[in-house]
């Protein structure tokens, strides 16, 4: 979230993608960084043992949310 917050301050809409187990961490971090509105999108855990096809499916499922995070207030 550090980078996301930095880019937001620079005026660049940003979104951080994280696996679902990172939801709590992302939440705490954006609060700690003083930007509770910083955007993140979660994709389902697990990641490290997912197949390439499963990874692409995660991307497809999250795509609309990712675009929305960059596009919509």
């Amino acid at each position, binding site marked *: 979230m*550090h980078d996301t917050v930095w880019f937001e301050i620079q005026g660049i809409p940003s979104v951080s993608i994280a696996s679902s187990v990172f939801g709590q961490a992302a939440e705490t971090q954006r*609060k*700690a*960084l*003083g930007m509770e509105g910083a955007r993140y999108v979660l994709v389902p855990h697990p990641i490290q043992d997912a197949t390439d096809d499963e990874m692409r499916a995660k991307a497809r499922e999250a795509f609309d949310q990712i675009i929305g995070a960059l596009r919509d207030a």
Partner: protein
Amino acid sequence: MSDQKPEFILKDLQGAAHHFDGTGPALVCFVKEDCETCNIAGPVLQTLSQAYGDAVRFLVPGQSGEKNADFAQRHGLTMPVLEDAGCKTSFSWDFEIVPALYWIDESGAVVTHFEGFVRDDWQALSDQMASATGKAAAQVDWDSLPAWRPGCGSKHFDPEVYDALRAEAEGSRLRARKVEVASGDDMAEFMFDQGFSDGLPLVPPTPERVIRMLEGTHRDPQDVIATVPPNMGPATVEKIAINAVMAGCKPEYLPVVIAAVEAVCTDEFNIHGVTATTMGAATVMVVNGPIVDKIGLNGGLGALGAGNRANATIGRALRLIIRNVGGATTGGVERSVLGNPMKYTMCFAENEERSPWEPLHVERGFKAEDSVVTVFAMTGGPVHLVDQTSRRPDQIAGSLGQGLEGVFLPKMHNLPIDALLVVCPEHINTLTVDGPYSKDRLRDRIQQVTARPLSEMVQDDHSGAGIPVADAERMGPEKLAQLAPKFAGKEYIHIVVAGGDAGKFSSAFHGWATGEVGSISVSRKIDLG
């Protein structure tokens, strides 16, 4: 019993929690791994615990983090060695030296407490424990142990640990919202981003620093000193302290800042107007009295310039309070067309020692032994008044008067506007070369040398400022020949002494709108408790 020790829950080296509820029978001994005396006590503790451990609970809180395990291993300790993370328990138990040992009975009373290592005390303890538990006395080779070792300072007294602990313990004294700044985030940038700054870097107002700052005053942190325009934010002592930390103040400066806040937030001073005016006024603070030397305010060489922490940061703290507590941000309520550098800071002491007059605060009705801050709303200055050749008192007084012609515009006279004249020691020498030269005489002289016929103040091709032509025509030549001094009355001329001993250069601050419509200078006694 009143000396019952606070309860705690601490984890041992394996991560199991141990709850001490305040009652025994228990032997609690705080240790630090790198303390030589603790390492003398370590094997004794182990022997005692073997002898009495069935009947007495042994607990050894360590202050050394991961190294607690080294301590336990080194001495083969079989009782729980606990992690006193951040030394919170040490702080709450309130001892000074490790090893710090407590033998506590069933009721929670402390039977025996000692710090450091006095062999006879430890031996007596062992005997006491033997008789209390009915166990055989522990087999310690007492003669092999040193008679006395002083022990080490408890880790919770390390300055950075202690301040944090105290801030936490005294957290209830602080009411301000806590803002978390992540470790990877740049604190200085964060504070700029939040709009806390006057444009210069700030000292982060951590709870530790604010607690230390609050020690500078006897006043309660939640006392409201003033409500600060434009937002009418309540300036509690705590909020003032937070801003004083950011400005770089030392705790002993805080009473001056508090008095200054009180002074500027009066109806007379009208800080709202001073801040909001497009003319660009700023607060000029003059400090008098014993506090000047006590905290190192500068009234001597370079008094109006940079280089002195007290001058620089006290003025800045006041300014930050107006900005942060009052909400006066540049471009918001703060609307001065150009601004001026005094909006960062302007605070100096009067050089009372080099003054032939009673100090400003005494002139304004305070006792000499009072410490007082006086605030003026000024739009310009300090403007240098150069005269290196006058030798007679009326000459130098005349030059100082002519030097004030620039207030607003040289053409404008009869101004109901304050000026603050800062006379340097060498000019004082010339003024008083023939004997006393009173402030009032200097004021009269200023009015005398600046007197000009009203005809010179009529609007013309050189300048459209001044008396409208139509008005001048109505007045007629006789009236226009009358002389008008610079100021509408001599009470508008405020005079102090400051500066170093060498240099024939005085200075002047030029006022803003003075009086009911603008600002009236205000003095406040500094509350030193």
